[in-house]
C-alpha cells in the first residue's frame, strides 16, 4: 500500500506545463458568465487527441466527462463532427464546427517521448471568432494520463469561465462494506471523478471524517484504534501516521487551519460536554476555544484563518455559530426551522455550507457568512456532510436512501440544478475534497 501511495505522489509531481503561444490576439473573447445563477451549458466539441493508439480518445473522453459533469458545458456528440482533425497545430475549418453549433473546439495530440514520457498538447478554439484561445503542452509519465486530461479540462474551464477549475483534484473518503449493522470502514482516496481509488487503511479499525491538508499531502481523520477514539494525521507520501495530541477523552471532528499548521477538533469530556480545541502541529500546544456544557463540534476555519464556524446545541437544538479564531465573541448565525450542523466555510470565503435537518428530511444548503441568504441545494431522506471543491462552486456530500444505511457520494453545484452521483467501488461516505494539486 505504501509503495502505491509513493508511486502515486511521485507521478503527480511529474507533470510539467508549457504554454503554446497563441498566434492571434483574443478580442470579443468567448466567455461563459457563470455568476448569474442558471446557465445554459456551452456546446463544446472535444475531438479525439491524435495518437497512435487508444490513449488520444481516452484523454478526450476524460476531458469531456469533466466538463459535462460541471453542468456548464455540453460536449457535442462526436458522431456529429464534420471535420476530421489530422493536424492539431493548424487552424480548423471553423465553418464545419459552427454548423454543428460547437461554440468552442478542443484539438490535441499525445505522443510518447524517447525517454518514455508522454507529451500531451491541446489547443482551444473559439469557432465563431475563428481564433485560438489557449494552447499548452504537458509532459508526464504514462500512468498519469488521466491527470493530464484533468489539467487540460481545468485550463479549458478557466479560459472559458474566468474561474479556476477543480478537476485536477482528489477526494479522500470512507469506503464502506460489511453488513448494514456493522460496517467495515476504510479510508480511501480517489480522483474527483471516482477514478484511481486507493485504500489508505485496512478496515481493522473504525475510521471516520478524513480531511485534506490545505498545504501538504496529508490528511487528518478519526480512528477508534486501541479502543480509544482519537484524531490522527496520515502522510500520504510516506504512509506515516501520528496521534494528534494526548487528550483525556475522545477527540472528534478534525479539520486543518488554512495554513495547515493547526488542527481544530472537539474533545468529548467526562461530563458529556464537547468543546472545541486546536492543536498547533509544530509547537504541539493545545488551545481551548469554547467552554460550554453543551455540544460544540464541527469547527471549520474561514479561509483567512481569522474566524471559526461551528455547530452547538447550547441554545437547544444544534445551530451554527461563528467566533474569532481565538474563541472570542461567539454568535449564532443560523435561525431557520430545524437544526443545522457540519458547517464548512467556502474556500472563496463568501458562503458557509451546512447540513440541515427539518421536517424529517436532511438537506445540503449554503448561507452567507452572517447567516443570511440561506439556499437549500438538495434535500432527501439523508443528505449529509458537504465538502467544497477548491473553486467554491461545487459541493460533494453523501446521501443515504431511506432505511438503508447505504451511503453514496454525490456532487451538486451552487445552482442546485446539477446533482450527480459519483461512482465508487463500494458504499462511500465522509468525502473531503483536496485543494488543486500542485
Amino acid at each position: 500500500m505504501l509503495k502505491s501511495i509513493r508511486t502515486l505522489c511521485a507521478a503527480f509531481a511529474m507533470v510539467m506545463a508549457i504554454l503554446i503561444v497563441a498566434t492571434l490576439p483574443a478580442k470579443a473573447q468567448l466567455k461563459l458568465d457563470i455568476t448569474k445563477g442558471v446557465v445554459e451549458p456551452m456546446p463544446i466539441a472535444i475531438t479525439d487527441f491524435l495518437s497512435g493508439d487508444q490513449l488520444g480518445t481516452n484523454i478526450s473522453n476524460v476531458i469531456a466527462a469533466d466538463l459535462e459533469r460541471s453542468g456548464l458545458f455540453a460536449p457535442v456528440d462526436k458522431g456529429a463532427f464534420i471535420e476530421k482533425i489530422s493536424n492539431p497545430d493548424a487552424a480548423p475549418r471553423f465553418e464545419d464546427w459552427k454548423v454543428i453549433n460547437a461554440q468552442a473546439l478542443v484539438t490535441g495530440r499525445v505522443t510518447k517521448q524517447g525517454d518514455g514520457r508522454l507529451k500531451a498538447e491541446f489547443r482551444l478554439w473559439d469557432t465563431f471568432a475563428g481564433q485560438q484561445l489557449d494552447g499548452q503542452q504537458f509532459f508526464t509519465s504514462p500512468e498519469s494520463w488521466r491527470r493530464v486530461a484533468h489539467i487540460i479540462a481545468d485550463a479549458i474551464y478557466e479560459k472559458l469561465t474566468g474561474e479556476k477549475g477543480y478537476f485536477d483534484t482528489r477526494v479522500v473518503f470512507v469506503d464502506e462494506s460489511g453488513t448494514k449493522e456493522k460496517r467495515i470502514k476504510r479510508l480511501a482516496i480517489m480522483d474527483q471523478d471516482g477514478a484511481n481509488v486507493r485504500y489508505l487503511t485496512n478496515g481493522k479499525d473504525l475510521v471516520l471524517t478524513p480531511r485534506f491538508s490545505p498545504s501538504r499531502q496529508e490528511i487528518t481523520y478519526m480512528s477508534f484504534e486501541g479502543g480509544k477514539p482519537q484524531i490522527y494525521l496520515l502522510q500520504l507520501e510516506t504512509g506515516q501516521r501520528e496521534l494528534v495530541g494526548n487528550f483525556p477523552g475522545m477527540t472528534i471532528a478534525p479539520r486543518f487551519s488554512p495554513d495547515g499548521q493547526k488542527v481544530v477538533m472537539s474533545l468529548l469530556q467526562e461530563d458529556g460536554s464537547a468543546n472545541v480545541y486546536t492543536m498547533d502541529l509544530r509547537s504541539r500546544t493545545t488551545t481551548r476555544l469554547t467552554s460550554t456544557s453543551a455540544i460544540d463540534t464541527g469547527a471549520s476555519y474561514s479561509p483567512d484563518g481569522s474566524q471559526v464556524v461551528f455547530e452547538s446545541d447550547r441554545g437547544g437544538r444544534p445551530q451554527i455559530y461563528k467566533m474569532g479564531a481565538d474563541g472570542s465573541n461567539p454568535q449564532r448565525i443560523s435561525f431557520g426551522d430545524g437544526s443545522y450542523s457540519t458547517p464548512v466555510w467556502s474556500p472563496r470565503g463568501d458562503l458557509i455550507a451546512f447540513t440541515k435537518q427539518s421536517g424529517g428530511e436532511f438537506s445540503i444548503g449554503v448561507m452567507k457568512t452572517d447567516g443570511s441568504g440561506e439556499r437549500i441545494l438538495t434535500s432527501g431522506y439523508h443528505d449529509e456532510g458537504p465538502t467544497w471543491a477548491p473553486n467554491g462552486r461545487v459541493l460533494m456530500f453523501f446521501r443515504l436512501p431511506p432505511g438503508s444505511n447505504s451511503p453514496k457520494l454525490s456532487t451538486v453545484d451552487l445552482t442546485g440544478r446539477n446533482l450527480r452521483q459519483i461512482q465508487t467501488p463500494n458504499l462511500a461516505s465522509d468525502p473531503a475534497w483536496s485543494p488543486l494539486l500542485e
Partner: protein
Amino acid sequence: MRRFEMIARSPVFVALFLSLAIAGCASKKNLPNNAGDLGLAGSARPGSTQDFTVNVGDRIFFDVDSSVIRADAQQTLAKQAQWLQRYPNYAITVEGHADERGTREYNLALGQRRAAATRNYLASQGVPAARIKTLSYGNERPVAVCDSESCWSQNRRAITVLGGAGS
C-alpha cells in the same frame, strides 16, 4: 485477553468459565440483542455476564436528541448498580449510541453525553465513578436499520459492557 486475565483472578470465575466452555454456551457475540427473549432467565450462573445481561438488562434507551435517564431506564440502572456492587471485580464500560437521524459528529458527541449521563446515574446509585469508563460509537453501530422510529428507538441506547470495551 485482558478480560480473561481479570476473570482468572477469581477461582469462582475460573470454574464458571470452564463450565461455560464445557457446556458450549453461545458466545456473547451470538446473543440476540434483546437478551430477555432468550428464556434463559434463571439458568445463567449468578455473577456471570450472562446473568447481568439476562436478569438485570445491559442497556437503557433514550428519547430523541435526549440524554435524560427515563423512568424505565432508572429502574434498569438501579438493578445494574446493585449487581455491579455485588460483583466488584468487573471493569465497566458504558457505550453511548445514537440513532441515524443526526449528523455523524453530533451523534458521536450525543453518544458520549448519554454514556456520561448513564455513568453519573450508576455512580449516584453507589457504583464508584472511577470504575466506569465511557465510550461513544455515535450512530456507527445500529442494532436495527430501517426508516422508522421502530428501529431508531432501539439504537438510541447506552450499554453497560462488563470486562472492557466491545459489545
